[in-house]
């Protein structure tokens, strides 16, 4: 009889501290836990009493890999309260900044965190010994994303140039044009990345998923849109909490999200791609066709190819924005605090990131709620693990352990993000 326990005390090549436990008894999976033991930091609690203008900088510190996602979700939520709509070139510049984060975050994941699994290396440094050019190209591509963030945000990690109403300062157009030459190289490198990831060996593991992402009639979603799913959900952001709840389980320092109907759902690149393929740029769609990877795409292991396609799109979109850029006269529009509640959701590299804030007349935050993508994916990750182990129950323990880790890394989990707790009961605002 096949009985074993798979235990990984400290998951590697993910952001943050998580562990994995799978118990198999008599050829049956008895228990699966993707455990998050990152210490809680209480962001929602200490945001209370802070000024609304501080939210972008404070919430950025939830995650060093995707600070822009937090800055974007928080400024949009605050602007939602104040009734301010940022359009035109300022809106385009925010999109450009987000493209920079997508490029650096996706490239980090594809080459440094995920690809070593497919090729049997412990890490990218090992991989570089056999594939030096690939790793050098990866670092260069990642740097191009960081160059955008550096220029427009001031620095790669916890950028300082984002504010409610716009930016503190906008660099000269000539500085953007310097980056666009590098972006043309990056776009080619991203095409090669798509082809390279498509050539990796993939296990056969198609699943039926509920995909949830933002959707926007005219563009691939980044900063705004409605929330949609492949099973008919179509809601505005302020209805999010009517449709999604979170539960707090003992084995996790992160709250897990469930649709009200008690179903798992899937957020992130694969969800965006399946629900918004037609909004991708021409070249991205063409390359997706070349590698025969058009929707429906239901194998989470192939998420690595989708990340590469989104990287290509982000390079292409960044180039478009820079080409058409007309530097606005003022870097921000004036905003004044007023009491109210605001909601926003943006597409972090790992999926939808929901923020809700209530502020008073002075602009002091009374209440904050943040739901990061990894908490939303946690149940789905456990479900994938269960199904994957059931399917591969006869693999040797070492190999199965590694494959389980890879199953988790498919989601590029960001555990620092996921760790925070929210109240289960809904408060009447």
């Amino acid at each position, binding site marked *: 009889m096949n009985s074993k326990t798979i235990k990984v005390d*400290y*998951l*590697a*090549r*993910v*952001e*943050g501290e998580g562990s994995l436990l799978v118990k198999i008894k008599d050829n049956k999976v008895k228990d699966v836990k993707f455990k998050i033991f990152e*210490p*809680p*930091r*209480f962001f*929602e*609690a*200490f945001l*209370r009493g*802070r*000024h609304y203008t*501080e939210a972008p*900088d404070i919430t950025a*510190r939830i*995650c*060093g*890999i995707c*600070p822009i996602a937090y800055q974007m979700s928080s400024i949009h939520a605050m602007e939602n309260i104040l009734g301010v709509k940022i359009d035109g070139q300022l809106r385009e510049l925010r999109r450009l900044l987000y493209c920079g984060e997508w490029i650096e975050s996706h490239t*980090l994941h594809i080459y*440094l*965190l995920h690809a*070593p699994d497919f090729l049997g290396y*412990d*890490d990218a*440094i*090992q991989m*570089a010994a056999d594939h*030096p050019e690939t*790793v*050098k190209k990866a*670092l*260069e591509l*990642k*740097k191009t994303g*960081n160059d955008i963030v550096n220029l427009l945000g*001031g*620095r*790669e*990690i*916890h950028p*300082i140039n984002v504010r409610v109403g716009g930016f*503190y*300062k906008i660099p000269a157009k000539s500085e953007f044009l310097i980056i666009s030459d590098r972006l043309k190289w990056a776009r080619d490198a991203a095409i090669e990345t798509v082809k390279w990831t498509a050539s990796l060996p993939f296990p056969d593991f198609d699943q039926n998923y509920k995909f949830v992402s933002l959707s926007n009639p005219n563009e691939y979603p980044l900063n705004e849109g409605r929330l949609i799913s492949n099973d008919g959900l179509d809601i505005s952001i302020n209805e999010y909490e009517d449709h999604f709840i*979170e*539960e*707090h389980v*003992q084995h996790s320092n992160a709250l897990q999200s469930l649709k009200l109907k008690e179903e798992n759902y899937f957020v992130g690149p694969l969800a965006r791609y399946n629900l918004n393929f037609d909004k991708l740029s021409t070249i991205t769609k063409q390359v997706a066709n070349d590698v025969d990877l058009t929707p429906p795409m239901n194998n989470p292991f192939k998420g690595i190819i989708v990340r590469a396609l989104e990287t290509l799109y982000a390079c292409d979109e960044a180039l478009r924005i820079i080409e058409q850029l007309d530097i606005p006269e003022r*870097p921000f529009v004036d905003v004044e605090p007023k009491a109210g509640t605001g909601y926003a959701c943006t597409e972090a590299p790992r999926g939808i990131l929901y923020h809700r804030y209530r502020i008073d007349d002075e602009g002091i935050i009374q209440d904050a709620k943040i739901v990061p993508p990894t908490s939303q994916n946690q149940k789905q990750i456990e479900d994938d693990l269960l199904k994957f182990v059931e399917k591969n129950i006869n693999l040797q323990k070492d190999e199965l352990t*590694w494959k389980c*880790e890879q199953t988790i890394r498919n989601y590029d989990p960001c555990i*620092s993000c996921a760790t925070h*707790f*929210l*109240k289960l009961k809904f408060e009447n605002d």
Partner: protein
Amino acid sequence: MSKKSKPKLAVWKFASCDGCQLSLLDCEDELLSVAGFIDIANFPEASRAVSKGPYDLSLVEGSITTPHDAERIHKVRRQSKFLVTIGACATAGGIQALRNFKDVKEFTNIVYANPKFIDTLSTSTPISNHVYVDFELRGCPINKYQLLEVVNAFLNNRKPNISPHSVCIECKRRSSVCVMVTKNIPCLGPVTHAGCNALCPSYDRGCFGCYGPKETTNTSSLAEWFSSNGLKNDEIVRTFRGFNAYADAFRKESEAHE
């Protein structure tokens, strides 16, 4: 370095956002060269491979916020020849040290469905409150070039060349116009440790103290200046109570205005 075995590097994470250890992976141009001189023996974010200690150099990110971590840091110290803390969480307790000014039970109730599942300390404290630290690298996040300088200094057995002066000095060096004098924007530059190359003033905003207090601060004089320019007490408290809220100089100044 060829004949000798390479020194072993370990990277440890406590309560943090991962941004400071990510700085190492953000050294895109230098990463592979650094890896040629040092053996990355334990760096879970980057590698599955773990070699056993002792380690020649440990980089520690994050603050101590749980009983488990208060134990774990001693194990890390025992396995480390040199221990360097990186970032505001590890050197001052980080933004999560805002709990130190409040009742943590209240915090837990605000954000927990089941507070009993959670094992947390009432404070977030820097690593140096728990074990001996050989060198502290400041910043939220750290400056990746300063991190390379620290690693380089370690490899060459010398003291890291990290200036302890204020952001103001960096500001003058890059010829930025003073945002406080010319635009009346509150700026922590005069009391904040250098390291970011006076980034915020170059983007027309005041410094908000990512690198914590410089060596000898005169925070009360700066706070007076803030007052005379119309900042109310609660605004002054918030200004000093940021990513280095629990660093002595900033903590005392913020408490003086409560």
